């Protein structure tokens, strides 16, 4: 096999060379967003780390110390600084951190988690390419999600700062309510195109004047 020369800039280090799972929808997201009503965008290449560890074990406590605590139960989110930890299961968590936190860009998050796990039982896995991130924001964002999500999304039931693994538009999605009118959706990369188009379709009616 012929050896290929190392590229001057790698896909890992030069984000402009990378193609995010919903890159083909970037223009559609811009035209489909209705300013101050409901807006959709992709926050590409966030750092995501899958954690599997028992919270009460030594390794779990070491990891909690690094990341600012592990969430206790369904819906809860912990973390400190830029990194957040979402509860996915009793021993399964998802760390969401900014792009720069990734190892390939010099970030220390994943190595420090790996070190904290040590030889304890569990896993620290770089899942940054597993899912992409959609941000849906605006006063109508809840109405858009309610078209395809069976959870009670009313603010009296779903508080900001809650993250739930559920179904939206019939596909599995992690839904994180980050603000009163802002949601982050984490579909798997292969579902990003479908969910993006599904959301655009659900948003479309809010571009027209309301029928009295």
């Amino acid at each position: 096999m012929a050896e290929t020369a190392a590229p001057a800039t790698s896909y890992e280090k030069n984000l402009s060379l990378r193609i995010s799972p919903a890159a083909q929808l970037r223009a559609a997201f811009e035209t489909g967003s209705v300013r101050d009503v409901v807006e959709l965008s992709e926050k590409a290449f966030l750092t995501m780390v899958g954690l599997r560890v028992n919270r009460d074990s030594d390794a779990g406590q070491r990891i909690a110390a690094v990341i600012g605590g592990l969430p206790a139960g369904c819906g809860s989110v912990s973390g400190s600084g830029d990194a957040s930890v979402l509860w996915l299961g009793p021993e399964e968590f998802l760390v969401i951190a900014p792009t720069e936190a990734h190892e390939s860009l010099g970030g220390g998050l994943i190595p420090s988690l790996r070190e904290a796990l040590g030889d304890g039982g569990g896993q620290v896995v770089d899942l940054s390419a597993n899912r992409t991130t959609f941000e849906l924001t605006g006063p109508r964002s809840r109405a858009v999600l309610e078209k395809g999500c069976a959870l009670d999304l009313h603010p009296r039931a779903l508080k900001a700062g809650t993250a739930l693994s559920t179904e939206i538009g019939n596909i599995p999605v992690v839904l994180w309510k980050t603000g009163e009118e802002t949601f982050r959706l984490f579909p798997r990369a292969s579902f990003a195109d479908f969910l993006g188009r599904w959301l655009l379709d659900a948003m479309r009616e809010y571009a027209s004047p309301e029928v009295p």
Partner: protein
Amino acid sequence: MLLISCPNCGSRDETEFHYGGQAHVPYPENPNELSDRQWAEFLFYRDNTKGAFAERWLHSTGCRQWFNMLRDTVTYEIQAVYPMGTPRPDAAGRVTPDTGTASTAADSTTTGNASPDISGTNASATAPSTSSFSTTAPEGATK
């Protein structure tokens, strides 16, 4: 559509779950000693109960954990939800000795203790009264 009360997440739509077949089917202690017929019966033969049926479910789109459920196959009434590895509760809330699962220890990844939980179902009239197994569903997880 069934509303199933996951022990970890609270009530969710049936579409978030996968069915795991009959519960309490013990893995043979010495599989090599079984005849072909006995092995086939372990693998494929299941009860076809009319009425209360103990079955396994997986919350595949949520917490990805298994649990047991007592469901009426005629009315679809969910009579109890209880952790893997714990004995089947009867309608009066008593537990009968487990006929065997691979593990007799309560699944360490399932929250709560061995008492069955029926919150989120409409079976409170026939509910086990000793339930101390509370769901830890947060606000927003139930509907």
